[in-house]
């Protein structure tokens, strides 16, 4: 944890909706430089949407998102693309290009953006793959990788241009315990070694709390709680308690809204 200066990402009074459905209704949050900040909340709260808003792929209905002091949604497309080269994003599925090999996937951003000679690209790619432990897998196709390996390759690709921050979308979901451990270590060591800023969006409480420096919990379009991981684990706020401890009952109901069971069973259709 480094000392706190100006936040790298500043979200202010963010409103966003899809069709009639409001997803964010006044979200404020700060992502501090050098920290791993976790944004947590149940599935469907809009965590992925938030990352896409930060990356400028979606446009808020109102409110602002600043990254490194500039308002993302006021940038022209040239400046936006330049900013994106400094932000890595790890998609939930990895989002590797399926028709080219692991090596070519990691080389892709370098070939598109740097104009480096091929010998140099080869060295860089091998170094990035080494960092995620997959140098030996360079000739495999994405279809031949396990989910955990695909995510590590995607991580190597996201790191290829040496970004200032990386956004992780549900990096732990659906991983076996071993690759889970690998990923947790990798994310936290990369963050420290490369002096990155990391945003992890997740609903896996335990793993996320292990490596996060700061946690925001969002629910129903708002930030409902925030704090250091240990504060959050011991929070009294009913929503946080329910979410962090995984209790079935609490402010978030187990049941999707429905008429009473008895009426439903006796009714016709």
């Amino acid at each position, binding site marked *: 944890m480094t000392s706190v200066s100006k936040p790298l990402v500043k979200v202010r009074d963010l409103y966003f909706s899809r069709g009639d459905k409001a997803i964010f209704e006044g979200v404020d949050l700060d992502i501090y430089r050098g920290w791993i900040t976790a944004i947590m909340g149940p599935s469907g709260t809009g965590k992925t949407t938030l990352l896409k808003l930060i990356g400028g792929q979606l446009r808020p209905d109102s409110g602002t998102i600043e990254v490194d002091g500039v308002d993302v949604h006021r940038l022209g497309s040239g400046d936006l693309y330049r900013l994106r080269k400094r932000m890595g994003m790890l998609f939930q599925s990895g989002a590797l*290009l399926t028709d080219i090999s692991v090596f070519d996937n990691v080389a892709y951003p370098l070939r598109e953006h740097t104009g480096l000679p091929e010998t140099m690209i080869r060295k860089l790619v091998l170094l990035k793959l080494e960092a995620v432990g997959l140098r030996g897998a360079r000739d495999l196709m994405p279809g031949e990788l396990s989910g955990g390996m695909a995510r590590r390759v995607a991580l190597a690709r996201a790191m290829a241009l040496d970004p200032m921050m990386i956004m992780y979308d549900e990096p732990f979901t659906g991983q076996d315990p071993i690759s889970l451990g690998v990923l947790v270590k990798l994310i936290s060591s990369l963050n420290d070694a490369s002096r990155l800023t990391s945003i992890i969006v997740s609903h896996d409480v335990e793993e996320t709390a292990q490596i996060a420096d700061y946690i925001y919990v969002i629910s129903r379009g708002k930030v409902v709680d925030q704090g250091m991981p240990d504060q959050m684990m011991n929070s009294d706020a009913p929503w946080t308690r329910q979410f962090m401890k995984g209790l079935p009952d609490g402010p978030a109901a187990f049941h999707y809204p429905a008429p009473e069971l008895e009426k439903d069973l006796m009714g016709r259709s």
Partner: protein
Amino acid sequence: MLDVLARLGRIGIGILGHIGRGHLLLLSILGGIPLLARRPRLLIAQIYAVGVLSMLIIAVSGTFVGMVLGLQGYYILSQFGAEQTLGVMVAASLVRELGPVVAALLFAGRAGSALTAEIGLMGATEQLSGLEMMAVNPIKRILAPRFLAGVISMPLLAAVFSALGVMGGYFVGVGLLGVDDGAFWSQMQTKIDLHEDVYNGVIKSLVFGFVCTWIALFQGYYATPTSEGVSRATTRTVVHSSLAVLGLDFILTALMFGD
């Protein structure tokens, strides 16, 4: 009553929105074409995928359509003792109409559906978003080369279709039914006009290639990112492309040969 009006209005707005998005997408795609001059390999790979891989079905269909034309044409023409003009009939039907139209219909089924499925799945598996976050514009990098490849391939495929069709007609007419070899070719040579027939056919297939590829890419790019969404989009590509080809063919024919 007001309900119906509101519903109609909403449908109308939906359709207009679609058309608008389609044209904006087309503009962005066209904006990506200059990039291909610097990176021709992107284009060549797509010409292979879109054009070369469609060759087999185009070649086989062309041959059979030509054979059927030879057969049917012979029976009708021989009733008037005009079987010498079989070559003209086969070639004119192919070059003016059947070549561009049937090749475009096959193209929509073979290459268009594949394009939609490919782009749609790239969307569903976040590959397109992934490119955007790598600061690579997927419209320029992925869609533009496919579009240009479609526009270039279509006239070539139609030409292959027509050429093999003529050979099919020749095989049946001259080879099996005994039409005079020399008459078949010489009649064709004198009656088929380069401008009137061949150029107009090429223009048609350029238009069809443009429209079919545009529809396929649009449907793929805006497909709902689920398996069901991609499957529906693929179906829509084939249906919309086929209707567009047939409708446009009528309009183009009226404009070209109408006077």
